[in-house]
């Protein structure tokens, strides 16, 4: 029972449920093959993607789900117009893909119900990908390379004809801007002798793959943690991580302003980072089937801060001036990581050493969710944690206006 939308008539060829194991379609004319834009080969017996597929030179949509595919041959690369590839319920894994798979112009990729144990690195090169489904596989992790470039690379700009008499303009800009800037500057370089040196090797830079990804479905795998780099996908609006083994959510996910729907049900979450309150676009959030802490656990562990941390805190909280040239690069980066203590009455900062404090926050005035606070020390308690055992009223700064988080699928 295949329900599909799409063009009817000549441009769709439906060869589903025909017990096919090859595609030697002698009765399909060459012209028909060239004209076909959508090809359905669902519920057949293919073990390999047939090489003759490349005769469908204008193919835009291919559905080869519910076969026995263990391997996708290189011939698929010749389908230069292919935008949608659906290969659900097959036997594919990370070794099944041709080497240059990442060069395809695919926009929608659905490999759910296969045997992927690792996120295929070829996917990370698909520049046009908007929708990726890997539900119901065997993935254990999401690679940090999901966003290949880190933001905030530093660009040193020398202005002048020779570096030795140049004025240094030091800028810190996002990598995307840096890329555009360098491309622009390369053009005007000859005219203005503008020399650009960067800490990042620009030869390796390209637009981040998966940059335009909007939908990422990873439900039904064995994923145990989420890399913070996932937050660097600026257009991701639908993220599905249900039915995995995730124990915590990185607070960086709070930067994902594009996120509209987040599915986290049936995991191993005991709390959420408080930053999740800042996802103002979020309309759907599913959390059922997680061992969310109901009672406040008074067990607060605290590792004493290191000398490095104490020094860093002093620099930051007293606003001691420093220039990047004054310090080794690793210390500059360390100072940049300082987080402000969430207690509004405390002006402190913390680096690695922090106290976890599970705070129950009224969510839309209806539910109580355990949100994790980081405090700079056990002494630094939030104003209304005086009676942490009870369901205390939430602070004003933590309560979420009713128009946010409208459809929270809790429970």
């Amino acid at each position, binding site marked *: *029972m*295949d*329900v599909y939308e799409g063009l009817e008539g000549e441009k769709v060829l439906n060869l589903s449920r025909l017990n096919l194991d090859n595609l030697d379609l002698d009765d399909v004319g060459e012209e028909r093959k060239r004209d076909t834009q959508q090809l359905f080969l669902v519920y057949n017996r293919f073990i390999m993607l047939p090489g003759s597929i490349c005769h469908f030179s204008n193919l835009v949509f291919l559905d080869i789900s519910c076969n026995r595919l263990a391997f996708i041959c290189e011939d698929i690369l010749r389908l230069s117009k292919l935008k949608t590839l659906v290969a*659900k*319920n097959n036997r594919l894994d990370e070794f099944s893909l041709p080497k240059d798979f990442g060069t395809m112009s695919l926009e929608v990729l659905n490999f*759910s*119900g296969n045997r992927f144990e690792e996120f295929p690195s070829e996917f990370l090169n698909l520049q046009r990908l908007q929708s990726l*489904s890997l*539900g*119901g596989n065997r993935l254990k992790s999401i690679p940090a390379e999901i966003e290949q470039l880190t933001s905030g690379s530093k660009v040193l700009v020398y202005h002048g004809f020779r570096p030795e008499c140049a004025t240094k303009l030091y800028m810190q800009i996002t990598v995307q801007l840096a890329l555009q800037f360098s491309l622009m500057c390369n053009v005007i370089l000859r005219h203005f002798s503008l020399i650009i040196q960067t800490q990042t090797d620009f030869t390796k830079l390209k637009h981040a793959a998966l940059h335009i990804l909007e*939908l990422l*479905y990873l*439900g*039904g795998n064995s994923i145990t943690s989420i890399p913070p780099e996932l937050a660097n996908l600026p257009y991701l609006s*639908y993220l*599905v991580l*249900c*039915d995995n083994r995730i124990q915590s959510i990185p607070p960086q996910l709070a930067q994902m302003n594009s996120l*509209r*729907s987040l*599915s986290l*049900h049936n995991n191993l979450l005991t709390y959420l980072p408080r930053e999740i309150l800042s996802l103002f676009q979020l*309309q*759907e959030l*599913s959390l*059922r089937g997680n061992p*969310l802490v*109901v009672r406040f656990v008074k067990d607060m562990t605290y590792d004493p801060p290191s000398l490095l941390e104490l020094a860093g805190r002093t620099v930051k909280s007293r606003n001691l001036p420093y220039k990047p040239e004054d310090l080794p690069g690793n210390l500059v980066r360390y100072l940049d990581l300082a987080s402000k203590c969430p207690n509004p009455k405390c002006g402190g900062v913390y680096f690695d050493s922090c106290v976890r404090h599970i705070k129950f926050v009224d969510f839309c005035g*209806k*539910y*109580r969710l355990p949100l994790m606070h980081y405090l700079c020390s056990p002494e630094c308690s939030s104003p209304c944690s005086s009676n942490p055992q009870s369901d205390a009223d939430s602070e004003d700064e933590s309560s979420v206006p009713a128009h946010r988080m409208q*459809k929270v*699928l*809790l*429970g």
Partner: protein
Amino acid sequence: MEQTEVMKPETLNDLIKVLHQIFSSDTVNVEEVQNLMESYESKPEEWMEYAQFDKFRYTRNLVDEGNGKFNLMILCWGEGHGSSIHDHTDSHCFMKLLQGQLKETLFEWPDHKINGGMTKKSERVLQENQCAYIHDSIGLHRVENVSHTEPAVSLHLYSPQFDQCNTFDQRTGHRNTVKMTFWSKYGERTPFVR
């Protein structure tokens, strides 16, 4: 005419016609409606125009308003989509699978003091063409498409009609009244208007 024999509707339109006849009287024979809906064999070409999916959540698509006696609608569930635990505002609710599978989990009505979450009564996975029935007197339920690879489509009949219900937090039993909206009516997309 006696309504004792179950007339097997061949098409969706036949089913709707018979439903109109059955609901012209004031009393509802639950078994009769359930058997009738179960006996219709789902044919996608007959309901495809109502099966409009949303990528973020399940959709409700109105098919027929039953002369004011009932609402007949088609719900479209993408992979992983599920509902919250909800009641049915004292109406009869019939749910038939047209495509795919749906998991139904039944819950007891929550007590005032909940420790350890709402009580699960039972759960089952409904198969294609099966028809389930629920009423507030039986309890509450959550419906979800647990498949990560297949979307699901279900046909729902509610009588009397209602446009709001209560949703429940499984951990605390806390309830919240919500207004229900349609993604489309009679095959036409109807964006939610506040």
